[in-house]
């Protein structure tokens, strides 16, 4: 009886660990690129790593973080990450570090793609905005399954 219980417990633990291994811990940041020295009241400068990466590739002097969303997405499940009132990311975990990303602006599907998110590497969606500014949405996964701390 005792051995059967321990067997059942082991099976449950194994199943739980397998399920958590298939989960994707994902972080999404909405960033605003501008030449202005200061952002708005609710935003703060982007952390040094992402800022350096953006500075390397783009012309804007300053990058301000507007939204930071974290999601834990089980395999074959979809989560909506609301980046702003008008922009939502719909992300499906396809398994094996692959995701389907659906960028939705004001209810319209603006861009849809499937990508492999390598651990700790940024996938950035971006575009021009008015007054010579730009928006960016940075996405990355945490392969170790650790919860990415929200800034």
């Amino acid at each position, binding site marked *: 009886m005792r051995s059967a219980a321990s067997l059942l417990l082991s099976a449950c633990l194994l199943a739980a660990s397998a399920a958590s291994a298939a989960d994707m811990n994902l972080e999404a940041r909405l960033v605003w690129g*501008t030449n202005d020295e200061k952002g708005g009241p609710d935003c703060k400068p982007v952390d040094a790593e992402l800022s350096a990466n953006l500075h390397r*590739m783009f012309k804007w002097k300053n990058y301000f973080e507007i939204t930071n969303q974290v999601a834990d997405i089980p395999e074959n499940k979809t989560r909506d990450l609301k980046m702003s009132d008008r922009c939502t990311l719909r992300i499906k975990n396809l398994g094996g570090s692959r995701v389907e990303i659906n960028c939705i*602006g004001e209810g319209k599907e603006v861009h849809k793609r499937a*990508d492999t998110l390598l651990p700790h590497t940024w996938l*950035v969606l971006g575009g021009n*905005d008015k007054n010579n500014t730009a*928006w960016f949405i940075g996405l990355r996964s945490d392969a170790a399954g650790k919860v990415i701390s929200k800034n």
Partner: protein
Amino acid sequence: MKHDLQLKVQAWLDGELPDREARQIAEWIARDAEASALAAELGCIKKAMFRNEAAAAPGESREFYWSKIERQIQREAGLRRGAGTPWYARWRRYLAPAAGVAALACVLVMAVRQNGPPTFDEISSTIDGMEAVTFHDQTSQMTVVWLQDNTPASAANIPVQDPVLSPDRPVPVSDM
């Protein structure tokens, strides 16, 4: 007497010196008693050797005789190279470079797989009027998908008041 002078006397006796040096040595031998004695002794030895040396005839032509020696030397040298070399040592000569090339290829493949850009996959679609350009920065290991608005308003460089995707960004301080 020094050894090199003794050799000079011997060379003079054998007629191996140039004329000028031969004359100098001859004058010196005529003056010096010790040199004269040495020259006389060497001359006697030369005569004795010349008369009593057995003539060795190979019994075959000179060319054939030396070609036999040459072939023998070559045969022995080949045997020496092959003898004592195990088969794997001979193969190692070819296998070592091949293994090096294979290892290099493995390293290159692994490097490309690790540093290569993420795989861009089968699904990619963009709303009409927009264009998506994807590029990858190897240094920062960052992939960027740039969504370019190609609507007439944007193409004419007229600021779009409310772009479809534009997030609700905060108003810059300068605009407040």
